[in-house]
């Protein structure tokens, strides 16, 4: 047993020598890491939701490249294809449908929540960062050089692991995915032609005959002196049909309708037959 342990540790120390962070990887990290951070900060501070989505796409792209640098080429490509390609585009689609112009309200529903959240975030980050930094001071990385070369490499080994050790969780994800697909269809479905949403012609006819008015509303009256929509239709006894008046007129200021009113009631000046000769005053 102890001999086995000793050989294991010997193998581990041999592997440890193999996995050091090369200069190239360090350069890649110091380029990609700040870019990913910038994307996260941009997403946090962008007022426009579409800008937030694009900043997040930058972060995910950088994370994908970081995975590839970190000896996980399969996950790197899946990250770029699934996250940046599919999920972020789904986000953009929903943003275009839902909340493109609904920028965040600046009203705080819970007073002091923003400040508390920022304090919490800084505290949490400090706690986790210091804990991780202290916990990993003497830990040397083993590296995946062996797993990524023997037995067909990274992808083949992940596949073997999925279909042997993780077979049951893998089957569970199929149930999860089909549930998610059905759930999205149920939640996103809206039947515009369902019964009761849009009235059929028959329903409209029945409604009209059973209601209190079998005919359409009277149109506005048209007289020789006025064809404005403000002109009311006249009933056979000469009185004004109130239904012929547009609702627009009720909501319009009375002063702006004074001319039309005068015209209908006959108190306005008629057309001046002597306007050009200027002899009206003489006749009067």
């Amino acid at each position, binding site marked *: 047993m102890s001999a086995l342990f000793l050989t294991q540790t010997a193998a581990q120390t041999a592997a440890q020598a193999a996995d050091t962070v090369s200069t190239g990887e360090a350069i890649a990290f110091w380029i990609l890491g700040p870019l990913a951070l910038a994307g996260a900060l941009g997403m946090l501070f962008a007022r426009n939701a579409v800008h937030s989505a694009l900043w997040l796409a930058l972060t995910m792209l950088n994370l994908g490249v970081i995975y590839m640098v970190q000896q996980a080429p399969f996950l790197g490509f899946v990250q770029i294809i699934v996250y940046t390609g599919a999920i972020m585009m789904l986000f953009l689609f929903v943003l275009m449908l839902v909340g493109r112009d609904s920028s965040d309200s600046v009203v705080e529903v819970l007073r002091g929540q923003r400040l508390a959240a920022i304090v919490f975030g800084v505290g949490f980050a400090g706690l986790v960062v210091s804990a991780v930094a202290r916990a990993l001071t003497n830990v040397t990385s083993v590296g*995946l050089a062996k797993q990524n070369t023997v037995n067909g490499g990274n992808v083949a080994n*992940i596949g073997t*692991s999925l279909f042997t050790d993780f077979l049951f969780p893998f089957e569970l994800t199929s149930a999860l995915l089909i549930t998610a697909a059905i759930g999205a269809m149920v939640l996103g479905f809206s039947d515009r032609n369902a019964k009761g949403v849009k009235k059929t012609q028959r329903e409209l006819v029945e409604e009209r005959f059973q209601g209190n008015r079998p005919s359409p509303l009277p149109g506005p009256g048209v007289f020789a002196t006025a064809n404005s929509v403000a002109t009311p239709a006249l009933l056979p006894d000469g009185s004004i049909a109130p239904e012929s008046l547009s609702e627009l007129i009720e909501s319009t200021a009375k002063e702006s309708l004074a001319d039309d009113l005068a015209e209908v009631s006959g108190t306005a000046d008629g057309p001046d037959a002597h306007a050009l000769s200027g002899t009206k005053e003489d006749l009067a």
Partner: protein
Amino acid sequence: MTPSYYLLLSAVLFSLGAVGVLVRRNAVVVFMCVELMLNAVNLSLVTFARINGSLDGQVMAFFVMVVAAAEVVVGLAIIMSIFRTRRSASVDDSNLLKY
């Protein structure tokens, strides 16, 4: 430089996502912040896989991606149906279950 720098980056990204969930009011943006947190955890899983010399961490990250995809689909469908009935995508307006 050691691989633990990746874990520090992951912790900072996770905290930024958590602050975003607490601060932002647009439901879609809140959802994006949740995605950022999931991505940060994925980064730490990939780094742990490398430090331990085992592919199990990468398989875990793969499962996290699958669950995140399912979650995004259902969550966005819920946001859509809420928007259809209430004409708002703000998390402050969805208060029917409050009392």
